[in-house]
């Protein structure tokens, strides 16, 4: 039998907190979050990049954490659903999801939220049609899509109002 494979030491900043972690090469970012760090807000819906429930932001970009090997992200900054609110104040997307009833069972919701935050940063979605297309990487079996689109529209509107105010 092959000798055991040594873990690798990596640095990750997760939701603002610096972590030094020993990870096996095969540990995905998703399993690291859920199993090792007990950050179970990030969900495992398929574990194969086919549903988007595991979506987190890595260096500000939305990615499927289930297909991300943690060892490869040494030095990265990770934001999960647990890190979206600041000082107990919900992120505008979180507020909008509650106001629009953009979820039912809640299991796809963390991924939808991180995906929406990523979408807002990307700046390619403006119309409802564009939001639908660019939120299509997140399945919702409860079928809350229409409300998700409305919530993202609300958050985008709040974002542009904020920007205008800042200018």
């Amino acid at each position, binding site marked *: 039998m092959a000798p055991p494979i040594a873990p690798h030491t990596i640095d990750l900043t997760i939701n603002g907190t610096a972590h030094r972690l020993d990870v096996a090469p095969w540990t995905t970012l998703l399993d690291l979050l859920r199993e090792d760090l007990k950050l179970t807000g990030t969900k495992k819906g398929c574990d194969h990049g086919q549903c988007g429930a595991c979506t987190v932001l890595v260096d500000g970009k939305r990615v499927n954490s289930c297909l991300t090997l943690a060892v490869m992200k040494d030095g990265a900054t990770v934001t999960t659903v647990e890190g979206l609110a600041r000082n107990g104040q919900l992120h505008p997307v979180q507020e909008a999801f509650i106001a629009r009833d953009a979820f039912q069972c809640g299991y796809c919701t963390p991924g939808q939220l991180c995906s929406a935050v990523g979408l807002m940063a990307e700046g390619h979605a403006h119309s409802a049609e564009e939001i639908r297309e660019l939120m299509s990487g997140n399945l919702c*079996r409860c079928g809350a899509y229409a409300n998700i689109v409305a919530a993202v529209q609300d958050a985008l509107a709040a974002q542009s109002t904020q920007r205008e105010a800042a200018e």
Partner: protein
Amino acid sequence: MTTVTPFVGTPRSRVDGRAKVTGAARYAAEFDAPDLAHGWVVSSAVARGRIARIDTDAAMAMPGVLKIFTHENRPRTAWFDYKHRDQTAPPGHPFRPLYSDTILHSGQPIALVVAETLDIARDAASLVRVLYETEEHATDLAARRDTAYVPPKKRSGIKPPPKPRGDAPGAFTSAPVQVRQESRVPAEYHNPMEPHAATVVWKGKDGIVVHDKTQGAQNSQSYIASVFGLSPSKVQVVAPFVGGAFGSGLRPQYQVFLAVMAALELERSVRVSLTRDQMFTFGHRPETLQIVTLGAGRDGKLVSVQHDAVAETSRLEDYQEVVVNWSGLLYRCDNVALTYRLAQLDVSTPCDMRAPGATIGVFALEIAMDELAHATGIDPVELRLRNHTDRDQNEDKPFTSKELRACYAKGAERFGWSKRKPAPRSMREGSELVGYGFATGVWEAMMMKSSARATLTPDGRLTVATATADIGTGTYTILTQIAADALGVPMEKVTTLIGDSSLPTSPIEGGSWAAASSGAAVDAACRSVRDALIGLARGLEDSPLANIDPDRVTVRDGRVFLTADPDQGLAIDAVMAASGVDKIELEETVLPDPKTMLTHAAYTHSAVFAEVRVDEELGIVRVTRVVNAVAAGRILNPKTARSQILGGVVMGIGMALEEEALHDHKLGRVMNHNFAEYHIPVNADVPDIDVLFVEEHDDKVSPLGVKGLGEIGIVGTAAAIANAIFHATGKRVNDLPITVDKLLDEA
């Protein structure tokens, strides 16, 4: 500030919303325990036969592997079948994981690898080697159609088809207009976003706490206690959040059996999560083949309805659902003959999936009705109106309420149905054919015996508790609204506890009965607490309320006072302190009214209007609008109610256009067992959906006048879309899903 009630009937955001948007809500696989071990399931590669050899040596040799359970070393469980039968089990022999070397279906669990960590369990599982002796299997329902039989034993709660009335075949023969529709609904898998999982927390002599993905904590609890011979007091099932279920969590599924088995044997906490692939290895909507024949006069009035269905079941159990009865119920007709038969395949036992039976049967009926509309030249909505009935002819009873005609009228108006040109292929825009389709939806309105407890403390906080579940339906929120109204407190002052087997008895959360049942129980318990509080206030000496008629008293915002003179009253804490009590806690049990159940039939109804656009050349379908008008009695929370209907419609779009388990019949295996190839709708597939609730007052169906909403949204949706596609293209596709290959005209 005065609390403005009622909360019931007004749109309210979910009380569990914050927990769900912050990641704080914990699902079955997310509860932690000291020293938690992880199980990984090994699934059968073949559909039928036996395990000749199972070699676990290489897997066991992997450091960190604790034990590998197979049929060869599994612990003993209860001997008799009835001990393995849960509340919702169909007649037959319930599946017992790892019971023997017999393989009954592809994907059957055949081993559980338990290890110190999830990755060790997973990686060791890939080293388990299995040698099978295969036997000839059958997974093709069409090929087994001639083996179909009438299930000898009926499933509890499932009405078999009514006896034939009149002479349906004879009336058909002489009918001026005849329609025959053969249709097929394929096997569909529930695929809630949360895969099934169970975390069993080992508490030594105190027993186990099981976090299971379940729609019935008490169903799981009694199953576990019965199968493993445990005292129910040593088994607590706690499932506060359920990541969708749609029926897949009605029966205790094999993850909970395996996790409990391993925990008891290893005397430590164990978690078992299924993979997405394994979500295709148990219950599913059964593939069903149907024939509907309708005979009618030229005026469209039905003179004969015949509906025959053959559905798949497993070799173990006679799974049954109500598929054909709807055809004798929905429209007035004096000559009706309905049959429902099963054919056994080498598959897992099907399982109730959102509006079980109705989704399938109403699809078949409503595409036939659309054909009848086409054949008679009568508008599809008008045809339904002409055949409207105010009596359930299957049981010869009136309805508790039926505002279906209002659904037709309001839905048609909102949709703009009058703009529809009757002829197929008569509406187009650019390269697309436009189609308007319509179908009726129907589902049972049921109420079940249910208990709840309410506890009022001097600080004016109210806690209500009942064992039911919230699978995304909004149970937490409506129960909170009901409780807040009863005691006149803001919703923030109410804590709702559900999803726990130790709470007052509730039925499983299914069948759309939770709101009517648990809602009534919570209402009753809160009213009793309110009455008790008023009783205390009236009994106090020097009280401004002493001996006042209780009807003249209001409880609101932490005070008990005279309705006519709010200054005359007492604070709740003062009443309780003066009475020497530190809380008022009462439990109540509600039942459906047995007399009404005998004398009346209770159903929810809907009218579904769909617009599709079909690329004429390429056959690509877009659903561009859906209007669903629903009559469901009293709507407790229009916001979460609308979401229930939206969800049903989206699943209906999936059923119409996308969902199908693709079987390789040579291998006896579902091949598209993942989210990349088993398509469910994505955001880009879903248009604006307009949901309307029509006024429907019902003082008979349940104490709160509630009918339930979980299922009705999906019923009729697939038919409305199929009918819209027919209207757009002139092509009738009755084999779901309606994919592009079925719409391409021969080139």
